[in-house]
């Protein structure tokens, strides 16, 4: 069993077997983070460039930790401290990075499709760490991994995703992955933040939170992305919280053993209430911990891909 591509550009195009392979492999990496010596020599001598053109704390540190625990050499490259801010084009920057012959480039960029662009032009293995509002495959994989740990499966589960659907790359990757694995996904948000295209992605849509949470096994709240909003999508934050915020009262509609997730960073009291985020059913910090294991699995599997042809 192997991955069919040597890049991880998105969940789109992956098969259920490939997703299962990554999740199964991640199981083997969980215990490494729990033991005294949290390092294995697997990727010794490999160089990974963390090319983050958009701010990120969680994802970048998670990748960096995954790289270090696999003994790879990590090079951090962020937009604010680079020539990128001096107006260099993406291709020129990438070509310069390539000249340092990295084995991997992990890219976070605000422009959808930039990882695919890079994959066409450089020789390194590309991992998409979030491209605009398009995809964030490793987040979807770690979410699925966390769900599977708690529920033992993905198939047949009802997953409610509530929040700013429009600006979220997390939700796109999650819907693709979860429906691929046989889960039923309901996306919910205010009409201004819930694009119709989700209808075609095999999930249900609703504007009513109560309807979304009814009988859910998993409740995922998404951040209201103020920084991506250049128009008034909803009147006030308070009104949003009242209408779409996930809280203890609303969670009662979900199954008794439903888990609460959030990809972070959270706006406490907006899309999720503080007591819920810290509550017994919250797996938010587990998501962060699992992220390292899942990213180790991705790097491990991709490093084993011998194919050197460029994917188009």
């Amino acid at each position, binding site marked *: 069993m192997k991955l069919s591509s040597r890049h991880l550009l998105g969940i789109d195009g992956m098969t259920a077997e490939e997703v299962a392979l990554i999740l199964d492999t991640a199981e083997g990496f969980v*215990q490494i983070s729990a033991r*005294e010596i949290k390092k294995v020599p*697997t990727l010794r001598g490999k160089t990974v460039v963390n090319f983050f053109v958009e701010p990120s704390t969680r994802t970048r540190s998670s990748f960096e930790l995954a790289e270090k625990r696999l003994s790879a050499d990590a090079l951090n490259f962020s937009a604010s401290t680079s020539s990128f801010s001096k107006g260099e084009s993406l291709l020129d920057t990438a070509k310069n990075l390539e000249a340092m012959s990295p084995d991997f480039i992990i890219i976070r960029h605000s422009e959808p499709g930039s990882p695919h662009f890079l994959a066409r032009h450089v020789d390194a293995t590309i991992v998409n760490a979030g491209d605009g509002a398009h995809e964030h495959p490793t987040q979807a994989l770690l979410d699925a991994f966390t769900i599977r740990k708690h529920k033992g499966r993905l198939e047949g589960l009802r997953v409610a995703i509530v929040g700013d659907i429009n600006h979220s790359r997390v939700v796109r990757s999650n819907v693709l992955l979860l429906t691929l694995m046989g889960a039923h996904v309901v996306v919910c948000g205010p009409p201004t933040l819930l694009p119709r295209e989700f209808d075609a992605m095999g999930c249900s849509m609703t504007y009513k939170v109560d309807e979304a949470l009814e009988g859910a096994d998993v409740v995922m709240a998404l951040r209201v992305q103020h920084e991506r909003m250049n128009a008034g999508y909803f009147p006030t934050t308070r009104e949003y919280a009242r209408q779409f915020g996930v809280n203890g009262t609303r969670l009662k509609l979900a199954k008794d053993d439903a888990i609460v997730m959030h990809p972070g960073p959270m706006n406490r009291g907006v899309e999720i209430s503080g007591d819920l985020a810290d509550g017994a059913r919250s797996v938010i910090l587990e998501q962060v911990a699992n992220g390292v294991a899942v990213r180790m699995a991705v790097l491990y599997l991709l490093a*084993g891909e011998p194919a050197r042809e460029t994917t188009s």
Partner: protein
Amino acid sequence: MSPPEKSIRVMDADYITRTLNRIAYEILEKNRTLKDLALVGIRSRGVPLARRLAEKLKEITGTVPPVGELDINLYRDDLSRIAYHPVLKTTEIPFDIDDKVVVLVDDVLFTGRTIRSALNALMDLGRPSWVQLGVLVDRGHRELPVRADYIGKNVATSKSQDVIVHLAELDKVDEVVIADTPEGVS
């Protein structure tokens, strides 16, 4: 893979059972007691062998030594050379190996590279006071200075042959087979 051209069965179920019985007694002979002794099987086929040895040791002494499972894939020295990275399984050693006598168990001892990987993996998990090695088959052709403390059977092979161990837990039958690899496959 095409079927082996010629194969010879060198151990059958009964032979394997008698051999493991002997090794269990040898473990006791060498260590006197099971106190602080643990068995760690190298995945995949070292694991059922370690479990069988633990069962036998329980029959003899009344106490069961703890059994762990070790996946050595992350420590292989050929990761940058093999075509696809092998599927990783979990390492499950649910006990502290610090200051323990650890008997590593594997099915076949060949180049010694697996054992080198296993030793590195083990050292990252703790500091055992003594590591011993038990194998069902020693087929020679070492590439590293490794030797086993307990050997089920020494088998003379040529480097191009395959030694295939089947165990009931994983393969429905118990047997050790030597097979000639077809031309062009190594």
